[in-house]
C-alpha cells in the first residue's frame, strides 16, 4: 500500500460492540519510521468498527502495530510506503517565523479566512452550494462549529441523541462525524483549512454541551482529536467567544487546551477565540501561553495588530465585523468598511477573516449556514490577497522592507503624502486603489519624497526596488 506524504492512512478492525465501546475499549496504534514512533488514538466508529487514522510526514517505509484492551484489536501489524505528495498537496499549515504561516512544503499560505459556523448542519443542497461558493471565493480557511446552538434542532449531533435533555454525552454519534469528516475532506480538496470550533457559549444549558464534567470534556476532545487530527487541513479553535461561557474558567480552558495538545500527535494549529459584543469588551485569552500557536482575535480595529504583535505569534483577527445588513452591529458593515479593516490589519503584519450576514436574501446569513455570497467584499479581498502574496518577503515571512514599502492610506483622502524613503537605488511606486481594484504605475522615488495623490479614500502606495 502507498500513502501520500501528509495524506491519510486509515486502519479498520472489528472489535467489541457491547457495553459502551467509546469508554470501555482502549485502542491505540504506534506508527514507526526508522526509529521514530508516533502513537495515535484509535476510535470506535459504530457497528463493531474500530478505526485509526494517521498522517505520515516522511517519505519511505512505515510500519505500525496496534495495542488495545480488547484482544481482537491488539497486536495487528502492517506496513505502508509513504510516497511524495501529489499535486496540490502542500502539507499542513505551520507557523513561519513569529507572525506568519506557510505550508509544510515551504509554499505560501495566504490565511484569508471566512466563517460558516454551522454549514455542515444544513441540507445537502445548501452544503453543496456552500462548497460551490467557496470554490469561487478567495478564502483558504473556514471557521466551523462541531456543536449545535441552543436554537438548532438537527437530526444528529456529535453525541448520541438529538433531543435536548435526552442526549448521552458519554457516547458519540459516528454518523454525525462521518458526515462532518467528509466535509472537512471536501474543504481539503478546495485547498481550504478547516478551523474547527470545539466549544461555544450558545448552548445555554439547552443541550448541556457547555457544562459537561471535566472528564466528559476530556473524553469528547480525545474522541474528536482521534477522528480528525490526521486530516492535514484541520486547525483547533477550542472555543468561540470563550469568555461568554460562564460555566468555564480560564483554568478550565488552560486544561482543555493542554489536553488537545497532549492528544494531538501532529500539533495542528491551536488557539481560542474571544467575544467582544462588538466595541464593548475585549478580554482575549493570554496568547503567550505555550500551548497557543497563534492569536485568534475578535476585535473591530485592524490598527491594534501592531500592539498584539508584541506577542511572538501570528495575529489572526478571525472576526472583525461582517459585511451585511443584520440588525446587530457585528453584522452590518459596508463592503468599503469591511475591506478597509482588512487592509489595515494586513498592512500591519496581521491576518483578517471575512464574514457576511445579509438577512433578506435567498439564503440565510453566510456566517451561520454558508450558502451563497452576496457582498462586494470577496472580490476586493481576492485583489488584496494577490497584492500581499506578491510582496517581497524575508525568510521569516515579514515583508522585506529593504526592497518594498507599503503604505495603506485608509479612509482618508490626502492630496499627497511625504515619505522619508531610504537612500540608494530608487523605489518604483504604484498606486493601488483597493476599492476599484486597480494598480497604476507612478514615478520612482528615493530619499525624502512627496508623492501626489488623487485625494480619494482607500488607496495604498507600494514601492519596490
Amino acid at each position, binding site marked *: 500500500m502507498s500513502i501520500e506524504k501528509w495524506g491519510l492512512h486509515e486502519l479498520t478492525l472489528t472489535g467489541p460492540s457491547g457495553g459502551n465501546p467509546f469508554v470501555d475499549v482502549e485502542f491505540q496504534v504506534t506508527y*514507526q*519510521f*526508522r*526509529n*521514530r*514512533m*508516533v*502513537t495515535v488514538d484509535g476510535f470506535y466508529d459504530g457497528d463493531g468498527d474500530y478505526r485509526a487514522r494517521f498522517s505520515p510526514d*516522511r517519505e519511505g517505509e512505515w*510500519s505500525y502495530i496496534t495495542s488495545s484492551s480488547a484482544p481482537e484489536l491488539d497486536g495487528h*501489524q502492517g506496513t505502508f510506503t509513504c510516497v511524495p505528495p501529489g499535486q496540490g498537496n502542500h502539507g499542513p499549515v*505551520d*507557523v513561519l*517565523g513569529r507572525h506568519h504561516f506557510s505550508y509544510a512544503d515551504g509554499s505560501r499560505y495566504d490565511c484569508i479566512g471566512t466563517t460558516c459556523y454551522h454549514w455542515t448542519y444544513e441540507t445537502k443542497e445548501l452544503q453543496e452550494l456552500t462548497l460551490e461558493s467557496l470554490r469561487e471565493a478567495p478564502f483558504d480557511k473556514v471557521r466551523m462549529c462541531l456543536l449545535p446552538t441552543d436554537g438548532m434542532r438537527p437530526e444528529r449531533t456529535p453525541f448520541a441523541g438529538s433531543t435536548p435533555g435526552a442526549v448521552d454525552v458519554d457516547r458519540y454519534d459516528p454518523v454525525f462525524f462521518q458526515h462532518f469528516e467528509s466535509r472537512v475532506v471536501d474543504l481539503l480538496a478546495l485547498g481550504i483549512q478547516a478551523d474547527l470550533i470545539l466549544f461555544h457559549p450558545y448552548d445555554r444549558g439547552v443541550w448541556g454541551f457547555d457544562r459537561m464534567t471535566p472528564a466528559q470534556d476530556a473524553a469528547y476532545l480525545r474522541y474528536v482529536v482521534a477522528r480528525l487530527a490526521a486530516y492535514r487541513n484541520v486547525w483547533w479553535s477550542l472555543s468561540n467567544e470563550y469568555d461568554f461561557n460562564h460555566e468555564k474558567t480560564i483554568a478550565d480552558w*488552560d*486544561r482543555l487546551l*493542554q489536553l488537545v*495538545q*497532549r492528544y494531538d*500527535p501532529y*500539533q495542528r494549529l491551536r488557539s481560542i477565540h474571544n467575544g467582544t459584543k462588538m466595541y464593548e469588551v475585549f478580554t482575549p485569552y493570554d496568547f503567550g501561553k*505555550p*500551548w497557543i*500557536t497563534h492569536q485568534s482575535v475578535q476585535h473591530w480595529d485592524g490598527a491594534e495588530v501592531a500592539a498584539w504583535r508584541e506577542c*511572538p505569534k501570528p495575529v489572526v483577527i478571525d472576526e472583525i465585523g461582517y459585511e451585511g445588513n443584520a440588525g446587530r452591529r457585528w453584522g452590518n458593515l459596508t463592503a468599503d468598511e469591511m475591506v478597509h479593516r482588512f487592509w489595515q490589519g494586513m498592512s500591519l503584519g496581521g491576518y483578517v477573516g471575512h464574514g457576511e450576514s445579509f438577512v433578506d436574501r435567498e439564503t440565510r446569513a453566510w456566517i451561520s449556514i454558508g450558502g451563497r455570497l452576496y457582498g462586494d467584499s470577496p472580490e476586493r479581498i481576492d485583489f488584496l490577497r494577490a497584492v500581499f502574496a506578491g510582496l517581497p518577503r524575508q525568510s521569516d515571512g515579514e515583508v522585506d522592507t529593504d526592497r518594498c514599502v507599503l503604505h495603506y492610506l485608509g479612509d482618508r483622502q490626502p492630496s499627497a503624502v511625504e515619505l522619508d524613503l531610504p537612500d540608494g537605488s530608487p523605489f518604483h511606486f504604484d498606486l493601488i486603489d483597493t476599492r476599484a481594484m486597480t494598480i497604476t504605475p507612478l514615478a520612482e522615488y528615493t530619499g525624502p519624497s512627496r508623492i501626489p495623490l488623487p485625494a480619494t479614500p482607500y488607496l495604498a502606495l507600494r514601492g519596490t526596488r
Partner: protein
Amino acid sequence: MTSVARWDVLELPVAGPTGVHFRHASGATAYAESFQSEDGWLVRFSPDLEGEWSGSSGIEFTCTPGTSRGPVRRFGTALRWADGTPYHPLTTSWFGRPDQWAAARPAIAASPFNRVRLAFSETIEDQVSDLLTPGIVADVILPLDEATIRAAVNRLSAYRNVTWCLSPTSTPQATDVRRLAELIAELDPSHHLISMHEAIDPGPPWLTHLSVRLENLRGVSALRRDYAKPVFVDACGHEGNGTTPDTSLRPEEMLTRIWEGTVRGAYVTHGEWYVDTPWSAGGSRPTGVVAQRLRLLREVLDELPDGVEPIDDYRDAPTLAVPGSYYLQYLGEHQFPDRTFSLPEGVYDVDVLDVWNHSVRRTRENVTDTLTVRLPGTQYQAIQIRRTS
C-alpha cells in the same frame, strides 16, 4: 555467530556512509546510521530484544540476555529502566573541559549521583563510556545544529546510559525544535529520552520530559499536573560563593530545594560553584557540603516502593506516598513541633530524617487510626513512614 548482550553495544565496520536496517525475529525493526570514527566508518546498535537479529548489511547476530537494566524509559510522569525497575535520578551538573574529565571521573563514581549533565564536545564519548560501568546516566546537551546532532546520535545512541537534551535558544523557533527532536527520534534505535532545556513549550509529544529552570520548587507540582510528563528541574541554582545569585546559594538552600522538588515528584539537579575550582564548571570534586548530604536522599530514593506518587492529602507539606503503606513528607524551612497522619490500623516504622544534619531517628508505632509524630522543632526535617504489618 556474533552475539551481543541485550542493551550492550554491537559495532560494525562499514565501507562508508550508510544506514543499516535491523530486523528481529518478531518483526520489530530498528535503523542505525554510520558515523566517522577514528578507525573509519562504523555502525553501532544496541539491541533491546533477545534472539535472532539480521541487518541489511548482511550481518546476523544473536542477542543474549542482558546483564544491565538497559536505557531509561518514561512511564507517565515517572521513569523506569528498560527492565522495568524504577529509576530515581539524582543529578549533578558538570560542564568542564575534556582535559578536566580524568580528574572529575572518580569523584562522580564515588558520589551519590546517578545522572550527570554534560556539555557536548568532540570527546563526549569518553565521558559517556566512563559512566556506563557505574550505571550513571549522561544527559548530553546538544547544540541546535543538525550535522552535530546527527553525528552525536549515530555515535552515542548505542550507549544505554545516554539521554538527549537540546540546548536552550534565545530565538524561539518552534519548527526547529520539532525538526531536531524528531531527527533524534528517527536516528536513535534505543529510543532514549529527549528534552529541550527551558523549552518555550515542553508540551508537544516529541519532547519526552521537561527540563526546566526553576527557583521556587513548589512550582513543580503544577508542571507535573499540566504536562503529565516527568519534570527535571535541571537548573535551580548552585551551592557556592560565586558572583551571581545563581552561583551563591547557601548549602541549606541548595539542599532544601532538591528535597522539596523531589518530594513533589520532580528530579532536581545539583550544582556547585565555589570560586577558583567550581565543580559544575569542571572541578575535580565537589568541595561543598550538599553533595555529601545527598547520600541520605540517595538511600531514601533507593528504597522507595514501586508506584510512589505525590498525594494531595496534606496540603501544607509535600508528600510522596503509596497510600496505606508508605509516606515521605518534607517540611522544608518550617519548624513544625509535630505532624499528624491518618493511617490504616497497623504497625509502622517511623523515621524522622534531619536532612541537614544527616541523622535518622527511628521508632516503631502501633497505629489505630492516626499517628502524631513528634519533631525536634528545627528546619529541614522529613518524615518517612513504612508499614511493617
